[in-house]
């Protein structure tokens, strides 16, 4: 299972689920990190944490500990086609 916190800058992924403390979870959901949402990891902060994620036309910063609660499936970089959510995940 891949989580958002493990992705590298440049990776694209689709959200599968959000599992973390209720308050954070709602915040993430309401900021648009819903199951099925496609996002990309833009960069890591200079000190390695937090990370910057782009989705729905805007950028969001979240700590790796928060991103660890977001399970994702990688979308192959080369293609923009929609990969099925259950596709086997390439190893990190």
């Amino acid at each position: 299972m891949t989580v958002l916190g493990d992705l590298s800058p440049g990776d694209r992924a689709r959200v599968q689920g959000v599992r973390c403390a209720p308050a954070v979870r709602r915040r993430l959901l309401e900021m648009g990190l819903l199951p099925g949402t496609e996002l990309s990891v833009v960069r890591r902060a200079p000190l390695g944490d937090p990370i910057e994620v782009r989705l729905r036309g805007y950028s969001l910063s979240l700590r790796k500990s928060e991103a660890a609660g977001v399970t994702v499936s990688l979308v192959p970089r080369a293609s923009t086609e929609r990969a099925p959510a259950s596709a086997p995940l390439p190893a990190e």
Partner: protein
Amino acid sequence: MSALPQVLVAGNPNAGKTTLFNQLAGTRARTGNYPGVTVDRRSARITIGERELELVDIPGTYSLTSSSPEERIAVDAILGEKDGETKVVCVVADATALARGLYLSLQVLECGFPTVLALNMMDEARALDLTIDTDGLAEALGCPVVPIVARRREGLEALQSALVQVLDDGPPPMPELEWGPAVEAAVARVSEAYADVPDPRRREAWARWALMSELDEAELELPAKVREACEAARSATEEDLDVQLVAARYAAVDELVGEHVSGEGPSHTRNDGLDRWLTHPVLGMLAFALVMLVVFEALFSWSEPFIGWVESAIVFSQDMLRATMPEGIFTDLLVEGVVAGVGNVLVFVPQIALLFFLLGFLEDCGYLARVAFVIDRLMKGVGLHGKAFVPLLGGFACAVPAVMATRTLSDRRDRLVTMLALPLMSCSARLPVYVLVVATVFAHQGDVFGILSVGAVALFSMYALSLGATLAAAALLRRTVLRGPRPTMVLELPPYRMPLGRNLLLSTGSRVKTFLVDAGTVILALTIVLWALLTFPKDPAVAERFAAERAEVAATLDGETEADALVAIDGAEASAQLERSAAGRLGKAIEPALEPLGMDWRLGIGVIGAFAAREVFVSTLGIVFGVGDEVDEESETLREELRAAEWPDGRTLMTPLAGVALMVFFVFACQCMSTIAVVRRESGSWKWPALMFTYMTVLAYVAALLVFQVGSAMGWGT
């Protein structure tokens, strides 16, 4: 008054809500407070056509779920209903990130009050080749959609007429959302707990709000029956209500965007270019250091001439009063109490204004979010938010503006932890105390490693100690009194934009004004109380004795020797009167408690006087030691007097060890009434400043006690 229809300006942070408010309000904006919480309520009476309306700036929010006081206010303002009140909600959305703005818009429309959607930053959207079919969007949403460019005043007339129009048209249709059976059942159940809300649509809106907000525990005061209904509704279904609630709205949002927006969408090229530099591992850190240096420099140096002017103006008015008013208690009260108190308040204004201007600039241009992004890794270790860095840094200059700067933190716990820990940072008012002590006790000591003087090492140690203590206190507060859900840092990184000077000036002005009104009055009152403590009771016997001495001097001496002798008598009289004042008696009364710290009653009076502001320690000691209150930390006379001071048994008072203990005391002690006043203002109750004062005083006492006792036992520096 209350009959005026309200226009609530709501919107996402960074959507230009404040710009729009300022443009519509012009110069008529007033800043007040929401009852019970320390959130500014900005409002203005405006006239559109023939209609008079009250324009209200609602705190920025991404949704109508409440996890911070600001969000709670937004919910109460938009969803709450008072008798005889009519309102229109103007949702401001960033046209370049329409999806997020539409999410909030749908929630507002669900509430069923007349609504207008203002699509801001249409110029940027056009530059990005985004085409938004506003008519189609308006039809789909059932409310007017007005394209605007708030900063250039484009589209404001159309917006104003739309606002008046919907007031007459009445509520918009309920957005068509596919909640699904589980959510609908839960909402039906919870809305029964809102039987007192007459409108069924609003009842359901409250139910959806409660379902989303209810788990955020202590932040909310939810009625027990609502909480119970939420719990019952949750346990009645296997479905994930949170996801379904949010997903239903986003499904509608995606459909709206898909149908009415065309074009590439923001490519963020401008941002990426800048961010590549500004968040680069090396250059980004350099840029960060540079920006922070400017903030620091502003607080420390740029503010100095302004502070100098304030101080000169105060001294000038004190001299004028002294020269024109008859001598007596009333004049003393006016000069030493009231005018000095006003000075104690005004002296903070330059730093507050500069800090908020810079903070506003950083926030509006988008860099403040990057500050948090870049430095969060270091801050989270002690349980602080990345955005707490600027307030902490400000603490090195002065806790008062720094505490006010914690406003940039949206979470209540984050804000309190930062505000209660940062007064431990060694502010610039502690420096005169350190300098006086170091120069007194370490003047004739050798060097360390041949390069650094002992004094420099001692001074540096105090700064290191204060930084360590601040971080430790933050970590500890987070684990004890302010324990709560794990702090988060989910933060939007907005596009870089050029700030609007007008916005910066208005927000700086309103910050300064709230400080003057709310914290200023407390500081003024405390100054007068402290003056009275240091002045009364006066001993007529002392006055007589010195009057006699003066008469003798006048009779026997003349010329310069007479003047010198009279100055010496003035100093001795001030010292003798201070000793007999309430503060002097208090100093003596607490001497048994201070002695284990290496302090006698004279230093005790200094500590009491320093409550006005730490640097006042120096001038208070000046009075105690009879060299007058005009001394500063560079005064060689005062240093000599301190070096010569002895305990009644002939031991030296200011040994190097006693000096270090005294400095350690000042590192930790909350000797600053202004900090207390401003923490009360910013935390909204006396509970938090009381806690802060207690923990800092205990810490200061114990630390100084340890230093002096352990040092004495080991025979160091005695």
